[in-house]
């Protein structure tokens, strides 16, 4: 990510490059002076709803024109030359599809739009539908598909031309756990195949399970980019809360109060203990021993601050 490597012998053109890109909708700022270069691997694009993720994607795939700055796909402006689109697969956020078509017909038509003959297109469609796990239902109409199946059909159409750059806008939104796992596996596998993948979400845990490279957008601005673990390590040093559900919260609290990283406890309800810490990682590391030694049964452990909002809050504080 962010690699625009130049040496004397070769120039690596990033799959995706935005240079001081801004987009305004009238007086509303959709994206504000974003510069980024992505090449290879899976990159998670994080941001709350309205952060500018979809605007960024629409700029990348040529649906929107930047108000300022330039977008380059493989070094080419997509508004001037359509050639990069032969190397791009895009999965839009919305779930609109041609419900009257079967997944096989849909993906075949999409393949033919890349210039493949009918026979080639059908072969490719079968291949990608198998890849996303829809091979046994590919002759069923898309209108009869579940949400997860529709998402996979959308991913299949994006993969049909074996693209080098794949853009997935909220691909896990609304999917059941099984579908989420399937789609995440597909994305991870594509990443391992050396493709450049940009996947957006507003749920941190989803992105965490797919990739370590993240880009965070907030209010149209690029807030952070880099390794998720590095950001999380920083976050872990920040005041954090851990919620434990148990029938003996007060007894358990006494065990944690001896821990060097815990600076406070609360009891929000009869069966809940809330621990405040400056080092989330250390408390989590020591927690199995503390619980084991206490002999107190804990039915649930949650990190209420381990979410995107907390990261954003933390990053905003640092500004």
């Amino acid at each position, binding site marked *: 990510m962010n690699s625009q490597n130049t040496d004397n012998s070769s120039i690596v053109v990033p799959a995706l490059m935005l240079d001081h890109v801004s987009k305004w909708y009238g007086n509303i700022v959709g994206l504000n002076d974003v510069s980024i270069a992505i090449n290879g691997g899976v990159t998670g694009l994080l941001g709350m709803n309205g952060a500018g993720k979809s605007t960024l994607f*629409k700029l990348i795939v040529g649906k929107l024109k930047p108000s300022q700055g330039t977008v380059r796909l493989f070094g080419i402006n997509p508004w001037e030359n359509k050639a990069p689109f032969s190397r791009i697969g895009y999965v839009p956020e919305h779930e609109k*599809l041609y419900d009257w078509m079967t997944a096989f017909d849909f993906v075949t038509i999409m393949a033919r739009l890349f210039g493949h003959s009918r026979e080639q297109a059908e072969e490719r469609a079968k291949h990608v539908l198998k890849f996303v796990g829809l091979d046994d239902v590919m002759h069923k109409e898309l209108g009869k598909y579940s949400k997860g199946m529709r998402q996979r059909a959308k991913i299949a159409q994006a993969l049909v031309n074996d693209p080098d750059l794949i853009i997935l806008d909220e691909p896990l939104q609304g999917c059941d756990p099984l579908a989420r796992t399937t789609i995440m596996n597909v994305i991870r596998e594509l990443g391992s195949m050396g493709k450049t993948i940009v996947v957006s979400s507003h749920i941190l845990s989803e992105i965490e399970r797919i990739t370590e490279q993240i880009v965070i957008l907030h209010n149209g601005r690029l807030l952070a980019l880099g390794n998720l673990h590095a950001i999380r390590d920083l976050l872990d040093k920040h005041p954090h809360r851990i919620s434990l559900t148990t029938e003996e919260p007060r007894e358990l609290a006494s065990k944690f109060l001896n821990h060097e990283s815990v600076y406070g406890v609360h009891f929000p309800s009869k069966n809940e203990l809330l621990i405040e810490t400056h080092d989330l990682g250390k408390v989590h590391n020591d927690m199995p021993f503390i619980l084991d030694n206490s002999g107190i049964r804990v039915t649930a452990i949650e990190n209420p601050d381990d979410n995107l909002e907390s990261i954003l809050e933390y990053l905003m504080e640092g500004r």
Partner: protein
Amino acid sequence: MSKDSRPLSKSVWSKIDVKSWAITEFTLRQYQTRKSTWSIAIIGMLLVTLVLLFYIKGQTSIIESIDQDGDSYDWDGDGYSIAQELQYGTDPNDANDFPNVTALPLSNWVDEDDFSYSMDGDNCQRNIYGIQTEGVCQTNVDDDGDCERLDWVLQNQLLGQGGKDSNFDNIDCSVFISTNIGINVIPDNYVDEDPNDNKYFHETVHRAFVLGFGKIGFAFLMGIFLPLFLATGLIRDEMESETLHYLIGKPIARGEFYAYRLGGYFVMTWAYLASLVLIMNLITGFIAPSDSFFRFQDIQMWAAILFASCLMVMAYGTIFSTFGIFTKYGMLASIFFGVWEFMMAMLTLIGTGSFFVTRMSIVFWGMQIIDSVSVYTWSDSEYLIQQGSLHDLEGHQALESFYGVPSIGSSPLTTLFTSATVLIIITSTVFFIGQSAFKRKELK
């Protein structure tokens, strides 16, 4: 380039061909799944069926014959018609003076002098009040010979100025055909004066039907409504439903995509129009008055109607789909445009080209194509209208309502080419405007 590799041009063209057909096929399949497509197709079929029923009723009805020249009457009650008495030189008013031959049925002198018009004849001149008009003269066209019997004509004091040569072409009992401005047919008195009313009615009504339904039913109504429902949303519906990206997020120029999308629409509407025109041609061809089992002469007329309708759905479709690209209120804009076209259609029918403003419409040019070909197919339509008006024959008003003289260029052929060219230019211009707008359009 190696021997095995394909030339670049071939490769590029084959890819374009694959993409174009893919989009066209997709568009056609999409039409098949839409209720609006089937609704408009069924309405069109019902309209055609309904109109055909009226047509069949008209063609199978019998019009009572009228003795326009009054020579079938037996004034003196001797059993002989006026015509037969005059033929043998007896007095039609004297019951005791009658021919020494068998009396023929009076009905023999009803509808006995039918129209003999054709463009065959010798070149001649008509000279009236010093003004000379070039034309064609036909002789031996007085079927019942009453023009030749000057005495009878004089006796009835019905002879106009010029005697037997009332058309002043210096030939007695002839038909003078002037082609200076349109076709003007001027027969001498008592030539072609007692036509076959039934035959005239069926012929004129048939022509009126073909022209009327061709101009209003096909060129205007189908021409407007098919594009209104099938073309306005060609791009707009995809934009609104957010599915457009699947189609244009590919290595294909938007302008190209728009062209192929229109291609699908053209294939669909042209095939539909062709099937309807074929049905109409087949049914009317077997029912309409004809010397043979089928009225082959109309094929070119129906071909012209199909040609004009195809050009019109092409022009309207491109305009309406461009409205759809520009605004989400494309349907509303198309309806307003349709109202304008309706007004122009009415003015074109009323004025047959005399209102210049009608040229600012699509429908005018489409109707001009049909009018141009009708002049070639039925060159005697004006004559039929003139004679029908002169003798107050039933059916002439219908033909007069829908018959139009091509008003562009020096000949019908020029009008035909000019009109087709104008429609193609309008379509191309609007297409390029729409294409250009679509290329720049952001998809929010």
